[in-house]
């Protein structure tokens, strides 16, 4: 109950900060669907040129659906918290957060949730509407799979957040991490299947990818939603196995983040704050 109040306080802060910059969201609302339109015509041409119905396991319609979901999942999973953390360190106001009766990690998580909320309402929902009417995107019909994939989406958000938090912690040593943040962003986009589905990658990488955290941030929850995993399949086609891998990565990344955080705070509080 008491913690709930603190959480609400941080979420409200994020929500209000997001609202303070309404215009930025309006721009996102307009620009975000553009990439789907570009992909639509690009892949239409590719499918027509090759004459194939299925490329790397996707029909044209499925691929467009993948891009629509990928845009939304990417928006929800993508975290900007390292930017805030860098800003705090550069401007010397990390202290502000250490004086709050809440852990630094929790503070950042719930602020992020508050910030994101507006993204989801203002950008993601209209996008789904447009996709259904314009691109003929179909929503999943199986209720258990839908619920399961929503659970996977939440885990994906946590994985993405932990990696961003780790990047942000590096600012405690390097102060400015702008380049690092851009690199992180590009890597995560590409390796999580944000530009093309991972089935287009060489098979050795696809095998390796199952053991890395990246595909669990985007590729896996989308494909779960699209019904590409089953309960009966073996290996990494089994929905419970990929779910297990996701949970494993959440735990591992959390432990790493906590460890690095300890070092970062030691460095911060040792260096005269």
């Amino acid at each position, binding site marked *: 109950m008491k913690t709930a109040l603190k959480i609400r*306080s941080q979420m409200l*802060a994020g929500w209000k900060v997001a609202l303070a910059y309404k215009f930025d969201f309006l721009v996102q609302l307009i620009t975000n669907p553009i990439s789907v339109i570009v992909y639509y015509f690009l892949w239409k041409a590719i499918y027509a040129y090759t004459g194939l119905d299925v490329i790397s396991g996707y029909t044209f319609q499925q691929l467009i659906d993948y891009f629509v979901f990928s845009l939304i999942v990417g928006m929800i999973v993508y975290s900007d918290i390292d930017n805030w953390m860098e800003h705090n360190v550069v401007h010397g106001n990390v202290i502000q957060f*250490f004086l709050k*009766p809440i852990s630094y990690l929790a503070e950042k998580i719930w602020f992020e949730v508050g910030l994101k909320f507006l993204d989801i309402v203002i950008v993601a929902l209209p996008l789904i509407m447009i996709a259904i009417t314009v691109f003929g995107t179909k929503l999943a019909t199986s209720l258990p799979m839908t619920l399961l994939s929503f659970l996977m989406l939440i885990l994906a958000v946590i994985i993405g957040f932990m990696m961003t938090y780790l990047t942000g912690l590096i600012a405690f040593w390097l102060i400015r991490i702008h380049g690092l943040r851009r690199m992180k962003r590009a890597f995560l986009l590409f390796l999580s299947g944000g530009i093309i589905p991972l089935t287009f990658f060489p098979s050795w990488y696809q095998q390796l990818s199952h053991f890395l955290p990246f595909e669990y941030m985007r590729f896996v929850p989308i494909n779960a939603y699209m019904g590409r995993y089953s309960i009966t399949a073996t290996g990494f086609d089994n929905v419970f196995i990929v779910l297990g891998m996701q949970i494993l990565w959440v735990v591992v990344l959390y432990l790493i983040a906590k460890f690095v955080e300890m070092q970062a705070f030691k460095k911060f*509080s040792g260096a005269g704050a």
Partner: protein
Amino acid sequence: MAKEIVTIKNLTKTYKTHERKAGLMNAIKSLFNRKVVLKHALKDVSFTIKEGEVVGLIGPNGAGKSTTIKALSGVLHPTSGVVRVLGYVPWKHRVKYVKHIGVVFGQKQQLWWDLPAIDTFDLNRDMYEVPEKIFRPRLKRIMKMLDIEEVAKTPVRDMSLGERMKCKLAAALLHKPKLVFLDEPSIGLDVIAKDIMRDFIIDANKKDKTSFIVTTHDMQDIEHLCERVIIINHGVVVWDGPLKEIKKKYLKNKIIDVKCESPIGKFRHKGCKIVSNDKYELRIEVDTMKTKIKEVVSHIMKNYEFADLVINDPPIEEVIQKIYREKKK
């Protein structure tokens, strides 16, 4: 007998910094070979503070005042020593501990930058778990006292330095902390705002029995607020005692600066020492034990055509030097 709420014993803080000489070549050199310098911010600092006290922590720049405050507020890990505040070890029980204190860092941002201050206040209500019934009237009272009812509605980034300071002060006291640290709280405040701030602090001290530790360069702040003063220099406590005693022992002298439009010539008066005389500008040190300030001023008014006259306390550095000299004897 009031309760002891702060205990510091042999607090020491040493940290490493990197020395670098000016210039481009040295900047490049430092990329490969950095010289590590140990800086002793605090050396064996010990003192205690009782409930309801307002203590001034003073000293020249870089003396270790802020470092002490940071160690006390749980932000800094000291190198060694014992610190106990309200029964907590600040840096160990940080999350539980900070609920009971309020902190204002004059030079740091502490409010949500993009939001009106009133939003930060509301968010802090939940963060510090203050029931709405208690919070609302308290907020109203505090805002009225600090005269920020209107400014609090504008985003913090649009506020002036002084407005921001007042809002920070409000935010630090809303949850009725038992102990408040104020690090340079009078930066950017005009004379009226300073008065408001001082009254506010005194009120909180009287009504809620809130204890304060204040660092400042403004001797006026100290005189108005503190009954007890701790002077720190080079990370060492050089004086810990009542303000009255300092005044009696070390602030006997006043400095008078006189500016004249015509050459001043010679000046002579009982109990006065001429510090400098630049023909048009005269600085005298008055020993208030030997003569009254009033007499000196009226002497100047009678005999000189002055354009400006300012009476000041000697700078804190001088007081520290005097204390040193006395200790050596």
